[in-house]
């Protein structure tokens, strides 16, 4: 019989979320921390993100993806955190039993006292947005193309159409151009870009790459390899407008049409998921509906900045440590956090204690100028901030200092609203 390891915490996934959570759990006093990663190196998606823009909140400086990851990897190297690379978790039970496999140990069972889910997300594919046409070679997701170029050193195509203006798509438009790959244009079905403004400016405008808003791809041509795509303008209902089609010859279609939190293991563990975020419902300490299983980073919801991922990871790591050491604070009744006016979702979805400072993360439903963000309970304001412009791709953070909860009296729920500044 193989020995069953029983660490204090097992962190599943060693991207920015897992790295941050493992470190935080260790710093908070857990001695036996295990970090499990299916890839052959630490860092998750960061090693392939060779552009800069990471770390402005957490490190107050601008780093590349590999640099950002390295900061954590270096810290972890100073600890005795056990790292299992190239190890695939096959199963996670509601009792927190993990089954995993790797080439060195074979199938292993782990019975940790707590679990932190940090599996990240995956890319939405061609069929999930139902693009009609053929199924030739030359259709790939932006993140996969980024990996091909920056890690494998291979060029996916010579003339590219990009559908979707998510951040990875924008970053890749610039990356393709620098590599001598022609980017015919970026097409976005919505009437506003999917990525953050900084990327639209620095990756498209600076390279004169056209962005066609309110457009989509309606057909993929080519039986063996992509020979072209038909693009078409869409109306307000996002349906293609007849007679507005245009065939564009190209050998590659790159998709940047959204990310999906990767929660297959969460489902196996019986964790409740939020339909709006696609991730586990969590409390203020990032604990899921299964006691002792925490979640952080993009597995909870897709963050736009890695800095936020790190922040959520710290919370989860500390919370797991408190859980294991029995120092966790918990109120009697969970307090719901409600997504109010022009708010698509809020994470966390509820709070279990009101004695700690809390960070709420949320996205708006539609773009809006000159707004105030109100976080309130019992009609009393807990936090507020102004914004010149809010847009769905950009996550908004609202911090509530713990003393505000005491001032508000008995709280049964908390609501987040985005209201016009004139109101």
């Amino acid at each position, binding site marked *: 019989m193989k020995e069953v390891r029983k660490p204090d915490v097992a962190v599943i996934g060693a991207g920015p979320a897992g790295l941050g959570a493992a470190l935080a759990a260790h710093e908070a006093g857990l001695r036996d921390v295990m970090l499990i990663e299916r890839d052959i190196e630490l860092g998750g998606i960061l090693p392939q993100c060779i552009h800069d823009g990471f770390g402005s909140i957490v490190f107050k400086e601008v780093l590349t993806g590999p640099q950002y990851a390295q900061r954590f990897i270096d810290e972890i190297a100073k600890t005795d955190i056990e790292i299992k690379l190239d190890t695939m978790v096959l199963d996670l039970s509601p009792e927190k039993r993990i089954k995993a496999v790797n*080439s060195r140990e*074979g199938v292993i069972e782990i019975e940790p006292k707590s679990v932190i889910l940090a599996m990240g997300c*995956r890319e939405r*594919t*061609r069929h999930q947005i139902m693009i009609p046409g053929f199924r030739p070679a030359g259709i790939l997701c932006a993140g996969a193309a980024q990996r091909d170029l920056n890690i494998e050193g291979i*060029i996916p195509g010579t003339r590219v159409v990009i559908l979707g203006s998510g951040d990875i798509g924008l970053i890749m438009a610039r990356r393709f151009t620098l590599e001598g790959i022609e980017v015919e244009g970026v097409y976005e079905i919505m009437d506003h870009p999917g990525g953050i403004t900084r990327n639209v400016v620095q990756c498209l405008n600076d390279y004169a790459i056209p962005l066609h808003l309110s457009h989509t791809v309606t057909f993929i041509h080519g039986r063996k*390899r992509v020979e072209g795509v038909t693009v078409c303008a869409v109306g307000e209902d996002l349906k293609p407008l007849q007679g507005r089609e245009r065939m564009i010859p190209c050998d590659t279609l790159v998709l940047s049409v959204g990310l999906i939190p990767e929660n297959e293991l969460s489902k196996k563990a019986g964790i409740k998921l939020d339909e709006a975020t696609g991730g586990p419902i969590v409390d203020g300490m990032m604990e899921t509906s299964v006691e002792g299983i925490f979640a952080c980073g993009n597995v909870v919801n897709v963050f736009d900045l890695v800095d936020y991922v790190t922040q959520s990871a710290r919370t989860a790591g500390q919370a797991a440590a408190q859980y294991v050491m029995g120092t966790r604070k918990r109120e009697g009744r969970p307090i719901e956090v409600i997504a109010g006016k022009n708010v698509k979702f809020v994470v966390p979805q509820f709070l279990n204690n009101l004695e700690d400072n809390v960070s709420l993360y949320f996205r708006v439903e539609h773009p809006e100028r000159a707004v105030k963000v109100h976080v309130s309970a019992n009609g009393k304001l807990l936090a507020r901030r102004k914004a010149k412009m809010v847009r769905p791709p950009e996550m908004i953070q609202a911090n509530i200092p713990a003393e505000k909860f005491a001032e508000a009296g008995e709280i049964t729920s908390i609501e987040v609203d985005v209201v016009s500044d004139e109101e």
Partner: protein
Amino acid sequence: MEQVTLPVEAGVVVIGGGVIGCSIAREITRYTPDVVILEKESDVADGTSKANNAEIHSGIGEDYGTLKQKLNVRGNFLYEEFVEGLGVDFRRQGLMIVITDRTLRSEVSKYMPKLVKGYLLKKLIPKLIVRNAEKKGIKGMRRLDRDEIFRMEPHVTPHAESAVFDPTYGLVSPYKLTIALAEHAVINGARLFLNAEVTGIRVEGGQLRGVVTDRGEIKTGMVINAAGLFADEVAEMAGAGGFKIHPRKGATLLFDRDATAEYVHSSVAEFRLPGKKKRLSKGGGAMPTLEGNLQLGPTAIETNDKYDTSISAEEIEEIFERFYYLFPHFPRSAMISAFSGIRAPTLEEDFIIGASEEARGFVNVAGIQSPGLASAPAIVEMVVEILHRLGLPDQKRADFDPIRPAPLKFSELSDEERDALIATDPRWGHVICRCEYVTEAEVVNVMHGIIPATNMDAVKRRTRVGMGRCQGSFCGSRVAAIIADELGIPITEVTKDGKGSQVFAGEMKSLLKEGAS
């Protein structure tokens, strides 16, 4: 395999490496190893056999008295025996034919008293369906009332009035079956040539003499024309034509296993009395795959292009609209893939199976559209009888090997079996495909299998690598790298599905060199 030259002579040449060609070739090897299979694509099962709904129909949907109907009923009956020893899963999940309040066309039912309508929908129509099936030789059909329907299939619409259950419907992976049949044939002496396109048939004085391909000529006295969509063109080469294959597309939508497992347990179809328009297919349905994904489809759309495997936006919508009535709360967002296959019907819509009188030795097995997969065992029986008359030895070989070893699958093994394999080859512990849990060892193994996979799609069909919810986003370039390594070619030469389908365009910086365009 491509470098190997064709033999000068062969006892039998089978044209077409689809499920029909491979079934027949495998059957021939029970009598003689001297059979050659010619396939123009880079793998077997690369045409219609790779893109259908995997269903083994009972024959209920076929017109009584047609060859199709008879062979379908017989084929279905023979299936367990047919797949024995192939290492391929076959399961009879059954078909639920649901009768709803729209089974009767509204112009008919509009003026009907409620009592009459109820009697028709709950009693008479199910009874007629069962009687019709019994006449065709289908056994075990029974009527279900509403309680039974929802107990068996909880997601079916409350508009269901009654249903008929056909327990004989089965599921098999069509491409895995075809590959297994081809490998079983090869184990027993058949020689398979991929990327070998037939360009002519040599006939002299009414006697078949040989087959001409783009890679050389083979002398033979017996040819099976199992060229599927191209069977009319091949028959024409022998002067044994006179029929026309008109391609008909069928699109199917495929859903995430986790989201739709257990969504349906049997195949489920809605019964609708035909309107004025003649139906071109059995109407399709919702059905599980053996792996647990849900499928919806197929459509039936005439096309004039035998390579048109595209899917239109209208087709996708049509499928959803059709099934929203049957499954009102269907999880549309769980769709992970859509594919289209092309049926190969003749204008007469029946199978054409028979020895040619114009070219003695030439046998057409044409017009094999759905339910061809289900009919395959019976088609084989019929063809072999013809071949015996043409000179195939009557005596079965004593040295026929009844077993085709199936490739091992990590996802199906016990932990003890996994550990034992990892101990001998660490690549068994290296999971490449995260959605379907496929290991590096499996990918490498199928590249050295009896019929080696040489491209991404061939590996995918054999291992399921890239068939999951991420559709190869994570594993694609990793699989390409393994293929390149095993074949000893640069990664830029790795293809998705044979010539012209290169996955990558070049090495890093190649486009920045002077002179690069």
